[in-house]
C-alpha cells in the first residue's frame, strides 16, 4: 500500500511558518515542555514522534493556544506564526484557533448534521454571506476532506452516525472549512483501523500542498510515510529535528536511535 503512494520527499526550502523559541510548559508542578526551539516550514508535513508522555501533544496544543483552556497549564516562551507572536495582546485566541485548525485523537463530530458540522466554523466567523456561499464552503471542505462522495446524499444526517474513519475525515473537513494556514493533528489515526488510517494518510498527503500540517503520532511508520520533517521528543525535550529521511536512517542523537530501533518507548 505504501509504495502505491508517491510521496514527495524533496523538501523545498520553503518559508518558515512557525518559530518557537524557549518554550516551556508547566502543568501545575510538572515541567512538561523544556526549552523547545523549533522552526516549522510552510506547506510541509511535520511529524512529532516520541514515547507517551514526552510532551509532543502538549507542544502541539501550544501552537493554537489550546492549553489556555486548561487552568493549571502555564505556557512560557515565544511562539510566532508568520513572524507574529501568538501570545501578543492583540491576538485573540479564538480567532487564532480558526487560523490554526486542529484534529483530535478521537473523532469528535458534533452531534449535529454533517452539514452543520462543517458549517459551524464558517458560520460563527461569518465567512459566508449567503446560504449558497455556505453550501459552497461546505462542499469544498468535504471534497478536500475526501469524504464528499460518501456523504453528499446524506448531509442532513447526524455526523455521529458515520463510521470512525469517516468521522475523522469529517473532523478534518471541519477543521479546514475555516481556511486555516496550519493544521494540527493530534494522533488522528490512533482510533482508526488500517484502511481508515490509509485514507487519512492519503488525505494528509493531499493537504500539505495547501497547508502546513503538523501531526503527532505514535507510529513511526506513519511518521515515515507521511512527513517530510520529523521532530523527536523525549521527556519534554526536543531531542532531534530534521528531515524525516535523516531522522529514520541517520539519527544524530543516541536517544533518537534507541527510540527508532525500539529500545526506548
Amino acid at each position, binding site marked *: 500500500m505504501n509504495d502505491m503512494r508517491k510521496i514527495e520527499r524533496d523538501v523545498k526550502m520553503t518559508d518558515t511558518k512557525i518559530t518557537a523559541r524557549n518554550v516551556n510548559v508547566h502543568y501545575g508542578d510538572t515541567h512538561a515542555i523544556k526549552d523547545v526551539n523549533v522552526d516549522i516550514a510552510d506547506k510541509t508535513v511535520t511529524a512529532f514522534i516520541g514515547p507517551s508522555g514526552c510532551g509532543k501533544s502538549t507542544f502541539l496544543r501550544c501552537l493554537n493556544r489550546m492549553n489556555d483552556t486548561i487552568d493549571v497549564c502555564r505556557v512560557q516562551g515565544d511562539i510566532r506564526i508568520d513572524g507574529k507572536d501568538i501570545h501578543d495582546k492583540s491576538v485573540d485566541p479564538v480567532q487564532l484557533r480558526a*487560523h490554526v485548525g486542529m484534529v483530535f485523537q478521537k473523532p*469528535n*463530530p458534533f452531534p449535529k448534521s454533517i452539514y452543520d458540522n462543517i458549517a459551524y466554523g464558517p458560520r460563527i466567523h461569518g465567512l459566508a454571506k449567503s446560504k449558497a456561499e455556505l453550501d459552497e464552503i461546505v462542499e469544498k471542505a468535504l471534497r478536500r476532506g475526501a469524504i464528499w462522495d460518501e456523504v453528499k446524499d446524506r448531509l442532513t444526517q447526524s455526523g455521529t452516525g458515520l463510521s470512525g474513519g469517516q468521522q475523522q475525515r469529517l473532523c478534518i473537513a471541519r477543521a479546514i472549512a475555516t481556511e486555516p494556514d496550519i493544521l494540527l493533528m493530534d494522533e488522528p489515526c490512533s482510533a482508526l483501523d488500517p484502511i481508515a488510517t490509509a485514507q487519512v494518510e492519503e488525505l494528509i498527503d493531499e493537504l500539505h500542498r495547501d497547508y502546513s500540517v503538523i501531526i503527532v503520532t505514535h507510529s513511526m511508520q506513519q511518521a515515515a510515510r507521511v512527513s517530510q520533517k520529523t521532530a523527536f521528543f523525549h521527556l519534554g525535550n526536543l531531542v532531534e529535528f530534521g528531515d524525516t529521511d535523516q531522522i529514520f536512517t541517520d539519527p544524530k542523537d543516541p536517544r533518537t536511535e534507541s527510540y527508532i530501533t525500539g529500545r526506548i518507548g
Partner: protein
Amino acid sequence: MTEQTASNKFDWAGPAFKARLNKRKRSQLTLKLLGLGAISIAFGMLFLLVASLVSTGYHAFTQTHIEVEVFLDPEQINADDPNRGNYRQIITDTLVTQFPEVADDRAELRKLTSILSNGAQFSIRDEVVADPDLIGQTVTFKVPVSDPYDQLNKGLMDRETPEEFRRLKNEEIANFDILKERGMVSKPLNTALITNADSRFPELAGLKGAIIGSFYALLTCFLLSFPIGIGAAIYLEEFAPKNKVSDLIEININNLAAVPSVVFGLLALAVFLGWFGMPRSAPFVGGMTLALMTLPTIIIATRASLKAVPPSIREAALGVGASKQQVVFGHVLPLAMPGILTGTIIGLAQALGETAPLLLIGMNAFITSAPATPFDSATALPTQIFIWADSPERGFVSRTSAAILVLLSFLIMMNGIAIFLRQKFQRKW
C-alpha cells in the same frame, strides 16, 4: 503431565474449591433475595398507600343529588336582576310539595329541608342568571344533598347506630328513604370536586381554587428558578474561576438543598411579606418561596448535566475557533438539556407537594373563590389537603383522600413529562 506436577498446582475440582464455590453462590443468592425483598416491601407500601387512598377517596368522586321540579315563581325572583331572588324559598316550597303534611309544622319542616345542601339554591340561581327566560317555567333541577344524607346514601352512616349517636334522626332517614323510593335520588359524578372552590360544606367543596393556586405558584416558581438556576449553574461550572470562593459557594448551594422547607417559609414570611409587604396568601409569593427551595435542586442538576458533557465536544468547538460562550450555548447546553429538564421537573414536582412554606405565608386560608390572578389569595393543593384533613365534617374524610389522589396524579403527570422530554431530546441529539 505427571502426578507430581499436578499436586503442585491448585486443585480446581477439590473439596476446598467446591466449598468456596458454594459459599460464593450462596452469598450471591442471599444478596438477590434481599434485593427482591426490599423491592417487594417498597411496592407493598406503595400499594397500601394507594389502596387506602382509593378506598376512602372514591366516595368523593360521586355526590348524592336529588331531582326536584322547580316552579320558578316570578313573584320570588326579580326579573331585572335574577341574582336577587328568594331561591331558597322556591326550593323548600318544591320539597314541601312532596310532603304536604309537614307544611305547617316548623320543626318538621326544618328537618325536611335539612336534606338540601346549603348551597342547593345557588345552582338554581346560577342557571336562572345564565338564562333569565326560565323565570315562570317549571324546570327540573338536580341539587346536591347535604353531607349527612350523602354519607347515608353512600352507606357510610350505620343505620343500626342508636338514634342519639347518629347525625340523622329516624324521621330524617325516613324522609330521605321516601324520596329515594320516588326515584328522586341519584349519585352522579362529583364534578364540583374540580369546578368548585373551597366551601364550609363538604358537598360543595372543590379543588378549583387549590389547583389554580398551585398552577400559579408553580408557574412563578418555574419562571424564577429555571433561568436563574441555569444561569448560576452555567456561570459556576463554565466561567467561574476555581478558587476558595467558588468552593464556598458550591458548599453553600449543596447545603441549601438540604435546608428544611419550613425555614424557607419563615424567610419568605420575614422578607417577602414583612419587608416588601407583598400580599399574604398569594400564589405569586408562594411561587417565590418555592423558587428559593427549587433553585439549589436545579443548580445541582444543571451542573451535573454540564459536567457530564464529554470534553471532546468542547475541544472540537474550541478547535474550530468558537468562543467559550459559543461553546457553552451552542454545544454544551443543548447536550445537557435532557438532564437539566429532568432535574427541573423533579424540583418542580417537589415544590408542588411542598406544604410547610406555604402554610407560613398564609396559603392555608379559607378562600371560597378561585384566584383570578397570581396576586389574589388562594390555597394550593397540599395546603388544601391540610385544611380538609383538619375539618370535622365527615364528608371531608373522603374528600381529603380524593384531593391527595388528584395531587398524586399531577405528580405522576409531571414525572411522565420529565421522562418524555428526556427521551425526546436524547433521540434528537
